[in-house]
C-alpha cells in the first residue's frame, strides 16, 4: 500500500535528510517510526503525504507514484491519508464539531452527510459530549482526539502520526495511543512517528523502524529473532 524504494531527500540548505530509505507498509499494519529528532521521521511522513518529492528514488502510495503524480491527484491521494500532528493544528475559532466538519466541507460533502459523519467520528474518539466546545476549552488530549476525528473524516487507508503524543502528559498519551490501536484494529494502517521509546517498548508485537541520520538502522520486520 505504501512503498518507499531507495528514497533520498536532500534540502538545499540543511543537506541530506534521508539516505536510500526503503520499506513497505502493508494494509492494516501498525508501525512505529522511531529515532532522535532530526533523524528524518517527519520527512518520511511528508514524502508519503506527497508534500515533498524525493530527490531520488520513488514513493508509492495506494497506486500513486511520486515520480508521476499530478497536482490534482495529490488532493485525491490525501483523502486516503489521515495526518495527526504534535501541535493538533485545529482552527481556534471553530468548535470541535466544526473542525471535523471542515475536512468534509472542503472536499465537497453534502451538509446532511457531514452532520451524520461528524457525530459518528466524535463518538468514535470519545468526544460526543464536547462537540460544541472550542479548542481552547479542551485539554491537550481532547484536542488531539478532535484532530484524530478530523484525520478519520475520509475513512483513510493509513493514519500518519507525527509525535502525536509529544505534547501530552502520560495519562493522555496512553489514552491517545489506545485510540490509535483501536483505529488500527478496525483496519486502518498506522505509521506512528515517535521518539517515546516507552510507548514502543510497551507495544509488544508492533513493527518498529528506526531511523538515524536519514538511514534505516533497524526494521523489526526484516530481523528474524
Amino acid at each position, binding site marked *: 500500500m505504501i512503498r518507499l524504494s531507495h528514497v533520498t531527500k536532500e534540502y538545499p540548505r540543511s543537506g541530506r535528510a534521508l539516505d536510500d530509505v526503503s520499506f513497505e507498509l502493508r494494509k492494516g499494519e501498525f508501525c512505529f517510526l522511531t529515532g532522535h529528532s532530526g533523524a528524518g521521521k517527519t520527512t518520511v511522513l511528508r514524502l508519503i503525504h506527497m508534500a515533498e518529492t524525493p530527490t531520488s528514488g520513488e514513493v508509492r502510495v495506494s497506486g500513486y507514484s511520486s515520480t508521476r503524480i499530478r497536482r*490534482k491527484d495529490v488532493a485525491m491521494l490525501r*483523502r486516503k491519508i489521515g495526518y495527526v500532528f504534535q501541535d493538533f*493544528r485545529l482552527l481556534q475559532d471553530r468548535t470541535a464539531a466544526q473542525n471535523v466538519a*471542515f475536512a468534509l466541507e472542503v472536499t465537497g460533502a453534502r451538509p446532511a452527510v457531514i452532520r451524520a459523519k461528524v457525530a459518528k467520528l466524535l463518538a468514535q474518539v470519545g468526544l460526543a459530549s464536547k462537540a460544541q466546545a472550542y479548542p481552547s476549552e479542551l485539554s491537550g488530549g481532547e484536542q488531539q482526539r478532535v484532530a484524530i476525528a478530523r484525520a478519520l473524516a*475520509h475513512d483513510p487507508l493509513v493514519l500518519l502520526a507525527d509525535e502525536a503524543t509529544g505534547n501530552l502528559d502520560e495519562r493522555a498519551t496512553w489514552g491517545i495511543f489506545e485510540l490509535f490501536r483501536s483505529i488500527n484494529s478496525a483496519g486502518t494502517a498506522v505509521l506512528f512517528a515517535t521518539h517515546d521509546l516507552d510507548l514502543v517498548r510497551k507495544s509488544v508485537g508492533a513493527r518498529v523502524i528506526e531511523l538515524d541520520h536519514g538511514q534505516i538502522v533497524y526494521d523489526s520486520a526484516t530481523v528474524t529473532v
Partner: protein
Amino acid sequence: MTYSIREALAAFRRAPGLAGLSAALIALSLFIVGLFGVVAFNLRRAVERVESRVEIVAYLRDDADPAAVELAQHEIEAFPEVRKVYYVSRDEALENARRDLVEFRSVLSDLDVNPLPASVEVRLWPGQRGAGAVRAVAQRIATYPFVEQVSYGADWLDKVYLLRRVAGAATAVLGGAFAVVAALIIGAAVRLAIFARRDEIAIMRLVGATESFVQRPFLLEGLLTGLIGGVVALGATFGLFRLLSGTVFALEWIPLEWIVGGLALGALLGVAASAHAVRRHLREI
C-alpha cells in the same frame, strides 16, 4: 459552493477597509471610463447626425457646358461611394435661398441679377461618409474643369473625429492607470486575506481540498469587489450625467450594452487581479 461564497463574504467582514478601498478604486477607474463613455457615445451620435447630412456641393462656373455637366453627373453617380446626384440650377438655388434664409428674404427678392451659381449636390451612401471618403470624392469632383469650388465641411468633420480620438486615448490612459492601481490594491487585499486564513488553507490542503477549491473564495472575493466597484461607478456616472444633462448640455445616456460591458469589465478586473495575487501568494503558504 456555499463554503466559497461564505468565505468570500467573510473576507469583506474581516478587512472592510481594504475591501472598500479596492472597490472604490475599481469604481474610480470605471467612473472615468464611464464618463468618457458618455462623452464618446454622444460624440458618436453627433458624428452620425452630421454624417447623415453630409453632402458634397460642387459649385459650377457660369460658363459650364450643360452637356458636359450632365455627362459628369452620370459619371459621379457611378462612383461606388455615391448614392445620388442632384443638379441645382441657378434659379433653383435662388428659390432655395429665399425659402431657407428667411432673414434675407427681402434682400433676395429685390435682386436684379441672380448672384448664385448652379451646383451639383452629391449624397453619399451611409458608411461612406467618413472624412477620408468624403475628401476623396470631393477631390475627384474638383478635377472637372467646370467646377469652381467644392465644399464639404471636412474641417468640421475632422475636428469631431479628432475629439473622439483624443477622448478615447484619454479614457484608455486614465482608466488604465486607475485600473492598475485598483489591481494592486486588490492584490494586497487578497494577500492579506490569504495571510489571515493561512492556517485554514494549510488544513484544507492537509485533508485533500483541491487547489481550485482553495482558490475559489479569493476569486469570488475579487469578482464581488469588481462588481461592487462597477455598480458604484455606474451610479456616479449616472449622477453626473443627470447633473450635466439637465443644465449644461443635452446629453444622451449610454445604451444598455455599454452598461453591461462596463459591469463585466469591473468583474473581470476584480477576478484577474485576484487570480494573479492568489497564484503568487498561495505558493508561500
